[in-house]
């Protein structure tokens, strides 16, 4: 395979990746809830994520289900104003935030690295409660695109374009030289 073709293949891959990675694929509100938390009990959530940028994380914010006829607070374990201790760590196990808060508690986070973020929550209240964890992204915010993939796509596109250009130039020069030779 000559250099022009190799560059062109790289350019195709880069452009397709750029098309995919230049827009945000995480948008809106995602909430998960795993069982109930007794008094003094702790729970850990694991967030497996790409570097998708800024978001708003909420501990103990119960989602409203518009498709359900159940009134808010129907579940006796969906309590608010519960004192909890929270700890948020990044993929390198560095603590980003650790404090005592009252639910629902929302705070800004920035997912800068690909990997596993962890949220530890301890129920310091005097009743059993569910403890949902929600992550809210802006709708189609370009800042929420996958940063590393976007950079890689730009690098591949630029490299592909450069190699293709170099290939064309080499071909042109070698043809020109051949024509000049008697």
């Amino acid at each position, binding site marked *: 395979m000559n250099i022009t073709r190799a560059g062109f293949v790289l350019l195709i891959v880069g452009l397709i*990746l750029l098309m995919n990675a230049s827009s945000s694929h995480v948008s809106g509100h995602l909430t998960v809830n*795993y069982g109930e938390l007794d008094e003094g009990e702790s729970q850990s*959530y*694991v967030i497996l*994520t790409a570097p998708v940028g800024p978001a708003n994380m909420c501990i103990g914010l119960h989602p409203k289900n518009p498709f359900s006829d159940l009134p808010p607070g129907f579940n006796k374990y969906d309590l608010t104003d519960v004192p909890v201790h929270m700890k948020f760590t990044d993929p390198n196990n560095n603590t980003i935030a650790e404090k005592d808060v009252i639910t629902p508690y929302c705070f800004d986070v920035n997912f800068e690295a690909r*990997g596993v973020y962890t949220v530890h929550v301890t129920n310091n209240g005097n009743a059993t409660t569910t403890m949902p964890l929600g992550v809210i992204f802006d709708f189609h915010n370009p800042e929420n695109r996958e940063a590393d*993939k976007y950079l890689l796509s730009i690098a591949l596109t630029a490299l592909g374009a450069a190699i293709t250009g170099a290939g064309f130039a080499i071909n042109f020069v070698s043809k020109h030289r051949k024509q000049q030779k008697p």
Partner: protein
Amino acid sequence: MDLALLKAEIRKVWGRPTLELAVGLVFFISIATVQPLFEITTVGADFYSVVTETLVRITSTQMLPLVILSGILVSLSFARDYEQGLMQTLLSLPVSRTSIFAVKFVAVVLPLTLLSWGITLFIMVMNYFTAASGLLVLQVSFWALPVIFFAVMFYAGLASLIALALKKTITSTLATVLAGFFVWFITTLTPEVLGPIADYLVFTPYSAPLWALKRLFGTRPLSEPGLEMNLPPWGFFILIIFYAFVFLVPTYIYFTKKFEVKE
């Protein structure tokens, strides 16, 4: 196998714009199926299921384009050479028929498998490679290689049989594409249409490679578990190896013993 012949065949089959189109098509389809990594679980839940489910999804999406591509390329390789008279030249060379058959087959199957697996590996590494999960991603992605290889071998075997039987480029290419679509189409039929026989569709050449991966990784079935749970992962691997050779062996025997070029 004659290496010079193989090199020439690869250059002929994968000439411009076949490689570019194949890379573009397979990469576009694969990347479109992968969601960005964003999942909230508990500590007990692991990274493994996320990685394996994505690998199965990528392989599953790639299957139909690979079926069509391998079919077209093999039938072009055999039937076009026959129509253009190149087959007669090849058979008159001091090279055995086994070598010619192997060269024509390998020139399509090997690059197509490597292309597909390379793209799968690239996407998996790009999405899931971290310091903690790197080895897992590589180990899981490795299994796509034999599965894709045997699946492509099956369709290439079918395509070579059709091409050698029909001997016309356009006719054999169309017949191969139709055969590929048919093999895919029957797997989409539901028990309401087919009745109880639909349970056996997991053992068809299109579904078996995907079920080999799913059973190997223990992926959660989307619906009620069926007959696929009765066959262990290695059973599915034996089945796809059987499929890989089911058309290849008779085609090879026909090509080496009976095949003649008519003036």
